[in-house]
C-alpha cells in the first residue's frame, strides 16, 4: 500500500532525481542510479526496474539524456547514461520550479500550524 503512494510521488519527481544524479556524478548505469538514489534517501527510495528503466527511456526519448554501451570496472558490458546539454537546461528550470513550489508549500504548511 505505501508502495503505491510512493510510486505516485515518484512519477513527477523521478525525472528530476535522475537528471540531478547524472549531473552530479557523471555517466552511470541504471543500477548505479538506483543505488545512488537509495543511498541518498537512506533506503527510503527503492526503485524497481519497471519504474526506473521506462523513466530512463522516456528521458532518452525526450533528448535529456543519452545512453551508450560501455564497460564497468569489472569489465562487464553495461549501458551508461549521460546528461545532455538539453537535459542540463531542463534540470535547471525544473529545479527552480521545484524550489519555488517547495517554498510555497513550506510557507503554507508553516502558516497552517
Amino acid at each position: 500500500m505505501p508502495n503505491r503512494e510512493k510510486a505516485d510521488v515518484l512519477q513527477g519527481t523521478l525525472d528530476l532525481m535522475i537528471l540531478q544524479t547524472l549531473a552530479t556524478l557523471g555517466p552511470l548505469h541504471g543500477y548505479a542510479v538506483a543505488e545512488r538514489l537509495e543511498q541518498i534517501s537512506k533506503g527510503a527510495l527503492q526503485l524497481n526496474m519497471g519504474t526506473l528503466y521506462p523513466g530512463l527511456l522516456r528521458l532518452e526519448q525526450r533528448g535529456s539524456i543519452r545512453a551508450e554501451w560501455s564497460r564497468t570496472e569489472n569489465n562487464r558490458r553495461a549501458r551508461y547514461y549521460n546528461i545532455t546539454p538539453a537535459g542540463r537546461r531542463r534540470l535547471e528550470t525544473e529545479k527552480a520550479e521545484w524550489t519555488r513550489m517547495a517554498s510555497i508549500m513550506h510557507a503554507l504548511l508553516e502558516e497552517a500550524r
Partner: protein
Amino acid sequence: MNGRLREYRVRLLATFRSRSAESEEELRFHLEMAEQEALRRGAPVREARLRVGGLSQASDALGDQRTIAWLGDLLHDLRHSARLLAKSPVFATAAVLSLALGIGANTAIFSVVNAVLLRPLAYKDSDRLVTILRRSDFPVAPANYLDWREQSHSFAGMGAAEWWQPNLIGMDQPEHLFGLRLTESLLPLLGIEPLIGRWFVPGEDEAGSEHEVILSYGLWQRRFHGDRRVLGTAMALDGEPYTIVGVMPREFKFAPFWATRAELWAPLAFGTRIHDRAANSLRIFARLAPGVTMTQARAEMATITARLDQEYPGTNRDVAVTELKEKVVGNIELPLLALMVAVGLVLLIACANVAHMLLARAATRHKEMALRTALGAGRARVVRQFLAESLLLAGTGCAAGFVLALWGTRTLIGFSPPDLPRLNTVTIDLHVALFTLGVTVLTGLGCGLAPALAISAANLAGALKEGERGSSERFNRNRVRGALVASEFALALMLLIGAVLLIRSFGALQSIDPGFDAHNLLSMVVSVASTGEAEPARREIFYRQVIDRIRTLPGVRAASGINHLPLGGDLWGLPFTIKGHPKPLPGALPAAVYRVAMPGYFEAMRLPLLRGRDIQTSDDMHAPGVVVINEQAAQRYWPGEDPIGKRIAFGPDWFTIIGIVKGAKQGIWVADIDPEVYLAALQNRSFLGEQKFPGSSYITLVVRTAGDPAAMAAAVQNAVRSFDRNLPISDVVTMDEVIARQNAQPRFEMLVLGIFAGIALLLAAVGIYGVMNYSVSRRTHEIGIRMSLGADRGSVLRMVAGQAILLALGGSVAGLAGSLVLSSAMKGLLYGVRPFDPLTFAAVTAALCLVALVSSSVPARRATKIDPLIALRAE
C-alpha cells in the same frame, strides 16, 4: 513541449521497428548487480529480486514506453491478417479487385464532381457573381443593360459581354479567332489581375477608342511565343490595328459558359446602339453588392424590368438573375449526381460481396476463433482482428483503386462531351484524397463489421465442443449471407434499370430525323472580313466561284453555302411583319429562324422542297426579294392558307414566299423545329457586305460528298485557298460530328452508367455464385441423405436453383422499389422514354433472374453429382 513531441516521434518510429534484445540485457545486468549486492551482504538472493521487481513486468513496462502500444497492436493484427490472406490468394485477389473497382470508380467520379460542382469558379469571391439574362438563357439588348446598370443598387458592379470573331491577319498564318467584346466594367468585376499589362480603363469602351485588346495566355503563347514585349504593340484584327494592353493568367477563362472558347477580349463600345432595345446580343454579368442577398437582387431587378416593360412593351420580360456557378454547372449537375449515386451503388455491391466472402471464411476459421476466445481473447479482440483483415483488404483495394482512378479519370475526360464545363480542372487534390480515405475506412468497417459481429456473437465455446458444423449460428449466418446477396441484386437491378433507360433514351435520340441527310456532309466556315474578297462587288463573285469550283472536285456530289450551319453554327431569330395581317404589338411580332442561303442549298443538304420553287442564281440584286419558309412557318403563320406568293418584310425589305421546305433541326437536336425563313444570299445586302452588319462577313460552305466527307476536307480547303491563300478557314467539320457533339453528353452518361451497371452485374453474379457454391458444399451431407432417401437429380437441381431464384426475386422486389425512386430522379436525363418504362423494368428483372440461375447452375450441377455414400461419410 518540444521534448514531449520528440518523445512521440521516437516512439512512433520504434513502433515500426522490431525490438532489440538490448533492453533485455540491461535488465538482466541490473538483476545480477542486485543479486551480487545481496550476496555481498549475505542476504538471500530472493530478497534482491523482490527489491528490484520482476524481469518480465519491467520488460513489459519498458516496451510500453518504447513504442505506441495501440498502434503496435494494430500493426500486429495487420501483419497477422496479411499472412492469413497470403495463404488464400484467390480470395484475397477477388476481394481486393472488387474493392478496387468500387473505390476506384468512386474516386474517379468524385474527382470530377469535386472539380466541376464543388470547387468555386476561378474568379474572386465567385459565389457573389451572377448573370442577368432573359429567360435565364437569352441575351439582352444594349439599352436595357444600360438602364439596369443605371437604376439598380443591388450590384457592386455590372458588365456586358458580346460575341466577337475577328480575323487575325498580317501575320504568317491568317486565323479566325474567338473572342469577346467586354464593357470596361467587366474584368474588374471578376477580380482576376492580368499576368502582365492591365485591364481596360474607363473610356476605352467608348466608340472610337475601343482598339485595345487583352490576350489569353494560350493565344499569347501560340501566336507570340510568350514574348513580354508584345505589350503596347499592335495586332491587326479585321484589318484594324489593336494595341495589346494585357495578357491574362494561364488559368483565366471567360466566359465560363456560352463563349467558352474566347481567347481575346476587346472593349465593347455601343456607339449608336445605346438606344437599341431590339438587337439582343449581350450577356450580362454582375457582382452582388456587399450584404445584398440573391432574393433582394431578384426583387429589385423584377421591379426595374416591370417598369421598363411598361415603358417599352415586350422588351423586358422574363429577366432572370442567376448565380453564375449555377449557370455554368446547372446542366451537368444531375448527370454527375446520377453517376455519383451509381458508383456508390457499385461500391455497396462490392462491400456486400466482400462481406459474405469474409463470412464464408469466418466459418472455416470458427475453430481458430473459438480457441482464441478460450485462451482469453475478449470479444473486442476478435472483432478487432476481423476489422484489421477487412481494413487491410480495403486499404489494398484503395491503393489499387487509386491507380484505377488515375487511369479512369483520364479515360473519362477522354470520352466526355467537349463542352462539359471545367473538366480541365479535374485533379486528385486534398479533397479527393480525403474522400477516398474516408470511403476506404468506411468500406473496411462496412464489410468487416457484419462478419465480425456475426462470428463473435455466436456461441464459440459451444462450437468448440460441437465440431465444425455449429447449428443455430450457422443458420443465422446463412440468413445474413442471403440478405447480403439479395441486396446486391437489388442494387444491381437499380443500376441496370438506370443504364437501360439511358440506352433506350440514347436510341431514341439517335433515331431523331434532322430533316436533311446528315451523312456524307462536310462543312467549313470561310471568313472574308478584311481580306481581298470582303468588298461587296468581289464577295458575290467569290462566293459563287468558290462553290462552283468545289462542285467540280471529284468526289463532290453537290455544294452550296449558308450563313449559319444548322445544329453547329450560330442561330439568329428575327421578327418580321406579314402583309395583310393586322399589325401586332412590338414584342409580339412573328419571328423565325433567319438563314441566308446560296442557290442549291436545299439540294446539297437533301432537304426536301415540299412546294414551290428553290432559290436560284437569278434571284439576285436585280430580281424581286424572295424567301423559302419551312413547313412549321407555313403552319404557324398561314394556317389553312397557301403561303406561296404571300409577302413578308424584315425591316423595310419585302419578300415573296416562293417555296416551302421540310423542317430541319435548328439549334438543339432534341428541340422542336421553329418557324424558319431562308433568304436568297445573292440579293442580301448584309450577307454580301453592302451593309455593315456584325457577324455577316463569312459563309458556311456545305459539301455533299460521295464517300467519307472528312477525307474531302483537305481538297475543299485547297480549292478555297486557290482563290486567296490569306482566307481564314475554321470549323471544318462533318455533319455527323456536329450531331455527335450535340449528343455527346447523353452518350457519355449512357456509356459510363452502362459500364458501372456491367460491373455491378458481374459483382452480383460472382456474389450469388459464391453463396450457392458455399451453400452446396456445406449441405453435401444433407443432400447425400436426401439422395439416399430417393431424391432424384432433378429435385436436387430444383432445390439449389430455387434457392438462388428466391434470393434474386427477394432482391428484385427491393430493387424495383429503389428503382422507382432512382428513375424518377433521372427524369431530366431521359428523352423519348418514360422513367417507369414497364418494358425496361420487366426485362431487366427477368434478365437478372436469369443471371442468378446461370450463376447457380455450376454449384447446382455439382450438387447433383454428389455421391450419397461419400457424402454420408463426409462428417
